[in-house]
Every structure is written in C-alpha cells, then in structure tokens.
C-alpha cells in the first residue's frame, strides 16, 4: 500500500505537533530539511515544524497509505521504494539512516514516539472507507441530499417495522473488524430465496439491527445455525404457526458482551439480547427474501419474531447447562437455535417438594400446542432461580428432574385420542391403548434463567412440526 512518487529519493517523515517527541525533534527536522532532501507530513498542524516546508496531512491520506502507526516515523526512500523505516527517536539509528554523524547533539539518546492519529479509536474504519481498497462488495446505494436515510430503509423494505441503523461503509467495516472471518466467506444459503449469505451481508444486517461489533461472532454463529438443513429455516419461516428462531447463548462470550440472563431475561432492555436475534431475522428478511405476507405465512405470529435471544444463567445454576447437555464444554461459547412460538408462564408458589413442582410443570407442558397432541411439538422450559431452589434443596440433578418429568408427561392414549371428551382434535384412534409421551426424545430443552425473585418458570412452545420432518434444535460453536 505504501506509495511514494516513483522518482523521489530522500527522507520522508510523518509527525504531529501533539507528540512530545516530535516537538523535541523540531531542530532535527529543520536540519534535515536544510541538509537532505526531506518530505515532511504533519498530521495535525501544517505550521509544525516551524520555518520549513511541511505537507498538510490533516486528512491523513498519506499517513493511512504509508500504514503509519507511530509518530515520528522516518523512512528512507530510493526511487519511490521504501528502504528503511524508523519509529520514535533513537539517536544512533537516525544518525546512521541520515548519514549525519552529529544529528540531535544535545538531545536524549532515546525518546518513544506517540500513536499516529490514524489509529485513534474509530478512525481506521473511517480511513479504510475514505482512502483504502475496501473489501466490501455490496451494491452502494446513494442517499440523495433531500432524502432521509432512515425513511429510505423503510421504503426499500429493509426494516421489520422498527428503525434500522443506516448501514454505511464505515459502520459495516467497523462491524467486520470484530471477526477474523473474511467478508466474502459464504455461511450458507438463506431461505426462502436460497441466496448465498456472506459474512459481509450478515455484518450489514447486524449494523441495521443495532448490534455492537463485538456481537458479530454470535450473530454469525446464529446465522450459520439457522442455515443448517436440520433447523429447516424455510419451514420455520413459511409456516402459518408462531415459530421463529430463538437464539440461546452459552459460554464466556455471553458474559463478555454483557448479555442478560437474569431479570426480565426474555424481555426488553439489553442491547445484545435485543439486537442479536433481530440481526438474524433481518438476514432472513433481506438476504433470504422472507417477509410476512410473502413466504412468511404466520397466521398470528408473536412479538419474538422481531428477534428473540437470551443467555442461560450459567454462573449460579445447580444444573449443567443446555449446551453441556448437548455435548459442548462449559467454557465453550455456543449458540443454540430453537424454533419456538410464544412464552407461556407457569406459576407455582406452593410447591416446596420437587415431586410437586415437577408434576405442576408437567401439567402446563402437556398443554403445549394442544393438550391433545403428543409427540409433535418440542418445548423449551426456562426454570427460574426460585423454582430451581426447590430442586437444589432436594439435591435433584437435572437427569433426575428429567426422569420425573418424563413420567409425568406420559399419559394413556385413550384420554387424548380424537373425539375423546367431545373434542374432535386429538391423536389417531389406533393409539387409544398405548401410553403416549408428550415430547419426542430430545424434544424438551431445559435452561436456567431469570431474576432472583419470583416463583415463575416459562414454557416456550416449539413449532408444531418439530423433529426430523420439521425443525430440530441445533447448536453451533461461536468462532471469534
């Protein structure tokens, strides 16, 4: 990227007045200007150093192209090619490079440089956009002077109905800086149009959703998970049911980016929780082309379709996390996607014995989707800290809870077959003599989350088409 005039031979210096070492070296630059061919660029004040010809680089174009990180930088150039570069002040090195044996007499032998203005926070992306060879391939859309960029996003159909952050190149580059993955890496094919979904397109939609750059690795993993065939995102989108991809985050990254796993965990108010799930849904909308009333045929939908993401409360859980149950390490960062409908509360303020609480939770779980339909729908049970206390006090492991729950979720077929009790909906008559389980094996997901007070748990109902013929929950490791 370094660029000098091809017939230039001599010294090139980059300085700023704001740097103490640069100011210390003012007489050195004045001497170099007098005795050598010197091109000197000032990042902040073209009147510095005084009384010599200084090139104005306040726009930082030259500094950016020369990849300057420290000032002062002194380079020796021959016929447009850089031969050597020094940063900061080391008297002996400068003397050798310039061939002036008494350069800087009376100055200290060493003085460290300062950060170049090009590396100030936020500037690298701005400069990359302004002067660099951008790695971005997306089509550019010019916003006319009299046009409002927020309105443009709505008019073009990019928004879920809420405002989006305008995806400028600068913001997208800043977003992409948070991952080591290449912008042109293809994560998969986004339904319903089965469009190739790149890291760059995900970053653009993550900007629009309001994500901070450090959320991007989570968003990328969530998109990867959604595009796995097993998750069946096409069906989750197209169904008349309430389903949406629900993102559950585990591991150190959830804490690092400040995700909420406690009070109001399934609600609003935390930026990471609110925007990561939204970014995934915007990817399906914009890259995949899936919109309500188009291929999204939801009859009623649910508020979580804007985006539904939360973290498991792992730090003080008595049970192994959902991710650990699914074969990942407790210190691995993962996302799990669950095709879920709305949140169904369960209140039990009397049970102090685990047997009682388990039966109570089972009673509500049996009503998921329809109290007469068994084996069709998965569920995600969110156990609150106060409900977990009952199991902790009794020493019930998660496995023991699951076993007791299974038993309470198995019923006589005759009670739930079509027509029983005067209700047409129900299981096929041929199953009347069988014992039937509410959930398929692996069809009940259990996590610990929520605030410290409140004897509530929550059931998030699965899609009516859970399992191999529809959606299976998937877990993907998050890559930085």
């Amino acid at each position, binding site marked *: 990227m370094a660029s000098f005039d091809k017939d230039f031979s001599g010294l090139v210096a980059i300085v700023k007045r704001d740097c103490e070492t640069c100011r210390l070296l003012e007489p050195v630059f004045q001497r170099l200007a007098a005795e050598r061919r010197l091109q000197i660029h000032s990042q902040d004040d073209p009147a510095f150093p005084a009384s010599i010809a200084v090139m104005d680089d306040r726009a930082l174009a030259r500094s950016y192209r020369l990849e300057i990180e420290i000032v002062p930088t002194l380079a020796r150039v021959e016929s447009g090619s850089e031969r050597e570069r020094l940063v900061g002040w080391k008297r002996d090195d400068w003397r050798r490079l310039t061939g002036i044996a008494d350069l800087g007499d009376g100055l200290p032998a060493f003085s460290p440089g300062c950060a170049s203005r090009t590396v100030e926070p936020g500037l690298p992306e701005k400069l990359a956009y302004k002067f660099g060879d951008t790695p971005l391939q997306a089509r550019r859309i010019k916003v006319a002077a009299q046009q409002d960029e927020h309105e443009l996003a709505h008019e073009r159909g990019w928004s879920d109905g809420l405002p989006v952050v305008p995806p400028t190149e600068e913001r997208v580059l800043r977003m992409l800086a948070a991952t080591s993955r290449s912008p042109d890496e293809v994560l998969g094919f986004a339904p*319903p*149009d089965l469009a190739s979904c790149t890291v760059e397109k995900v970053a653009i939609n993550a900007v629009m959703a309001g994500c901070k750059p450090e959320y991007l690795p989570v968003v990328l993993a969530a998109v990867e998970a959604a595009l796995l065939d097993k998750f069946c995102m096409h069906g989750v989108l*197209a169904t008349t049911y309430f389903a949406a991809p629900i993102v559950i985050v585990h591991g150190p990254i959830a804490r690092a980016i400040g995700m909420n796993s406690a009070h109001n965990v399934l609600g609003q108010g935390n930026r990471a929780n609110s925007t990561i799930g939204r970014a995934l849904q915007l990817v399906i909308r914009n890259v995949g*082309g899936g*919109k309500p*009333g*188009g*291929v999204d*045929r939801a009859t009623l939908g649910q508020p979580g379709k804007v985006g539904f993401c939360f973290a498991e409360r792992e730090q003080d859980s008595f049970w192994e996390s959902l991710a650990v149950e699914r074969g990942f390490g407790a210190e691995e960062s993962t996302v799990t996607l669950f095709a879920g409908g709305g949140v169904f509360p369960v209140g039990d303020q009397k049970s102090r014995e685990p047997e009682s609480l388990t039966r109570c939770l089972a009673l509500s779980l049996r009503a998921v989707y329809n109290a007469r339909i068994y084996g069709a729908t998965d569920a995600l049970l969110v156990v609150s800290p106060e409900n977990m206390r009952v199991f902790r006090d009794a020493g019930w492991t998660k496995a023991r809870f699951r076993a007791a729950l299974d038993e309470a979720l198995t019923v006589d077929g005759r009670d739930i077959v079509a027509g029983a009790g005067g209700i047409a909906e129900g299981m096929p008559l041929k199953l009347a003599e069988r014992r039937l389980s509410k959930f398929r094996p692996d069809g009940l997901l259990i996590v610990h989350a929520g605030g410290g007070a409140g004897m509530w748990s929550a059931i998030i109902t699965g899609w009516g088409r859970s399992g191999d013929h529809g959606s299976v929950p998937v877990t993907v490791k998050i890559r930085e």
Partner: protein
Amino acid sequence: MFVASNEFVDAAATQGRALGFEPAVCFVEHPIQDRHDEEMRALADAAFEEILESLVAG
C-alpha cells in the same frame, strides 16, 4: 402445475418472482385441514376441469 388454497395467492406470487418461474396454479377454497373426506373430494371435483386445462396448450 400446482394446487393451493386461496389463502396462498400472495405466497405463490412472491415465491414465483423470487425463483423467476411462475408455474400454472389453481386455487381451491380455504380451509383444508378440518375438511371431511367428502368435502375434499368435492373440492377436487370442482377444480378438476381447471387443472386439466392448465396441463394442455390452450
């Protein structure tokens, strides 16, 4: 050609545009899932002529 219930007119058009292909389509009366067998056969009979016409050059 494909047959769908008339609640899916928009969905068929959207998907057709996205795929660049708009096959012949016949819409039958919604709903479907709670119909008895006799009603389903009546729906098929009502649509039969239109389906046949869409299969041959008109």
